[in-house]
């Protein structure tokens, strides 16, 4: 890393302190609060003297907050978290339903193998509970209606799933571009591959829906290599990625996923600055990076960029980023801004009828609706991913349309909701742009090598950079740990 020598002895001394902090982090394992109080105090005074922080973290989503938590646990006190919104959580968000109940508007599930986020939740004393799937799912299409028990799955053809699982073994989750079969697999879309498998017309809609939900785009524009890397994350088992029971949609957090972020933020005190978007990152190739924010300039030796790659395009970089990284950001797909709704009922009435509250529409307005009630079913909540352009944008009109669909699938009780929440991630604010990454064919071959290498003192974090479960909350947590480690290690070496 190109670093200038320390400018004065003052700096040298605080670097030695940091070295100690870093060493403690590396050796101490869990006992990371080991930085002596006096040293901590010294570090703080020093910072206020020269006004330069050790680390600035951009983004108070799950990745940025995890990084902050790790820095804090390692004894580093000289950092700040800059968040553009006036809330924490990024792409996780709780709708407050009143009466102490919530429904998740953003990322909400964890599943097998997502050990990083599961561990974090345990440390934060947040419990989990299973997604409700017992009973029959309703399939709607035109005037048609079918009740079917899918036993906690989406009813996908498991023969095709098994083929994908097998193929995924040669596509490393963290670096799909290094696959031994990259040339052949990255040329294809999932759709082109599926078309060769002779998918029956009645199954096509299911693949369109599941790829849209999991990958952010229907099979026609989803890169096969990328999709296989996602299956690889799920222990090379398609059913652990795209199902409910024993899968990545199978487990929820009591109190909602955003609770992980609010808990982590509580511990940060004034190190967290809300409503503080970063507009410019200057001198990232020099010893001290300058961040121009809406609340003035922040200077730091390392910057952990824990935001979506597409959001980086809205930041001015001075000097310009290396071409590889700049090209990656420009090309990063951002056309999957999900719209997620919550319809609230007095109770989950559908359960009495043997229904699980799940609705799948064939070529309809609802991609997938599911029972998102709280753990004990105190109230009934139907969450849904909807086809944005097929439902009116006005929430009251959208509520009427959806209530009628639910009446057809669950019964007339559905016509009397007690609440409705509607979150269109593409319109709610400019700070997400999109949800999951609909990586097209050829993307990883062209841009993969530029995903992770630091640029000067900029360390790239955020779920998209995770080695395992990229795009998921678990990936965000992993990338946060990684970002903090990278920052501490490079400060120690300096």
């Amino acid at each position: 890393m190109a670093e200038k020598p320390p400018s004065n002895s003052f700096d040298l001394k605080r670097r030695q302190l940091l070295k100690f902090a870093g060493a403690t982090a590396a050796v101490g394992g869990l006992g990371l609060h080991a930085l002596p109080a006096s040293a901590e105090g010294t570090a703080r005074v020093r910072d206020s003297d020269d006004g330069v922080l050790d680390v600035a973290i951009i983004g108070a989503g799950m990745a940025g907050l995890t990084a902050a938590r790790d820095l804090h646990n390692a004894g580093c006190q000289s950092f700040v978290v800059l968040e553009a919104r006036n809330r924490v959580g990024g792409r996780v968000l709780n709708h407050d339903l009143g009466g102490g109940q919530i429904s998740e508007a953003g990322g909400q599930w964890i599943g097998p193998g997502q050990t990083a986020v599961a561990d974090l939740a345990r440390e934060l004393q947040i419990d989990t509970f299973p997604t409700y799937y017992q009973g029959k799912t309703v399939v709607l299409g035109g005037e048609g209606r079918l009740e079917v028990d899918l036993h906690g799955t989406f009813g996908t053809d498991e023969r095709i799933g098994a083929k994908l699982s097998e193929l995924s073994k040669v596509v490393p989750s963290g670096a799909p571009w290094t696959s031994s079969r990259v040339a052949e697999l990255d040329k294809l879309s999932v759709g082109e591959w599926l078309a060769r498998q002779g998918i029956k017309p009645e199954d096509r809609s299911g693949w369109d829906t599941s790829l849209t939900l999991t990958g952010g785009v229907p099979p026609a524009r989803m890169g096969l290599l990328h999709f296989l890397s996602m299956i690889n994350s799920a222990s090379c088992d398609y059913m652990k990625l795209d199902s409910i029971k024993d899968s990545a949609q199978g487990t929820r957090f009591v109190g909602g996923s955003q609770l992980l972020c609010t808990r982590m933020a509580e511990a940060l005190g004034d190190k967290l600055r809300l409503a503080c978007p970063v507009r410019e990152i200057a001198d990232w190739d020099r010893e001290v990076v300058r961040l121009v924010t809406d609340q003035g300039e922040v200077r730091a030796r390392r910057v952990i960029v824990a935001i979506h790659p597409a959001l980086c395009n809205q930041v001015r970089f001075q000097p310009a980023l290396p071409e590889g990284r700049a090209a990656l950001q420009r090309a990063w797909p951002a056309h999957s801004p999900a719209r997620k709704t919550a319809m609230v009922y007095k109770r989950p009435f559908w359960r009495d009828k043997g229904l699980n509250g799940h609705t799948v529409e064939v070529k309809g307005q609802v991609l997938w609706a599911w029972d998102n009630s709280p753990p004990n079913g105190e109230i009934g909540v139907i969450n849904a991913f909807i086809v944005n352009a097929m439902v009116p944008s006005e929430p009251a009109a959208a509520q009427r349309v959806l209530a009628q669909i639910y009446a057809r699938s669950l019964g007339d009780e559905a016509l009397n909701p007690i609440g409705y929440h509607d979150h269109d991630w593409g319109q709610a604010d400019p700070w997400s742009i999109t949800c999951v990454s609909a990586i097209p064919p050829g993307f990883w071959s062209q841009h993969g090598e530029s995903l992770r290498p630091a640029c000067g003192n900029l360390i790239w974090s955020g779920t998209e950079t995770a080695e395992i479960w990229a795009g998921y909350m678990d990936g965000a947590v992993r990338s946060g740990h990684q970002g903090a480690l990278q920052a501490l290690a490079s400060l120690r070496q300096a």
Partner: protein
Amino acid sequence: MKKKLLLVTGVVLVVLLALFGRDLLGLYRLQDYLDTTTQAYEAEGPWPQTADACLACHGKQGSSLHQRYPSLAGQPADYLKTQLHTFASGQRMNPNMQPLAMSLTEKQIFELSDYYARQPALDNHGFDPDPALRAQGGKLAAAGACMACHGEHLLGQGPFPRLAGQGADYLLAQLDAFAEGRRTDPSGSMQAISATLSPADRKALAHYLASLATAPK
């Protein structure tokens, strides 16, 4: 024998209908819907198709009920092609469209533009215009000579988009972008016209254009 068999089948059917009538009818209708939609889909080619990726925001056959995501149905192919090219080059800014357009081949751009140009433009029933704003917008449209470029009924032609029945929030966002220089057009006319309009005027125009019929009598 044949008669007997038919009779038995009939009896079985009646029994089944009595037991599972609603379910059977539902299943039959679902199958019927699948057949009809598959047939309509395959008229454009085999599954899957590039346009599948556009549906979420631009709607079934390019007609969006969402006022902020534009309808592409009935847009002139020339206009659509140019927009995809300018998104890809970064000349027209939109964080969602830019990377998507960059990932398309020339052939895909041609096919998508052709497909949406062929789809029937539908009226914007999802929008409830304010009568006063709509009337004011009508006057502004006449004064601004929108028809000179966008066609007599504002249904678009050549490089000029259809405005009639377009999403109200989308129209307003574009007028604002032109006025503030965030969107440009080759001749500069849209910037020049929009710059003379107050924010209230732009809103009125959006209400008027969004509520215009796409099949004028």
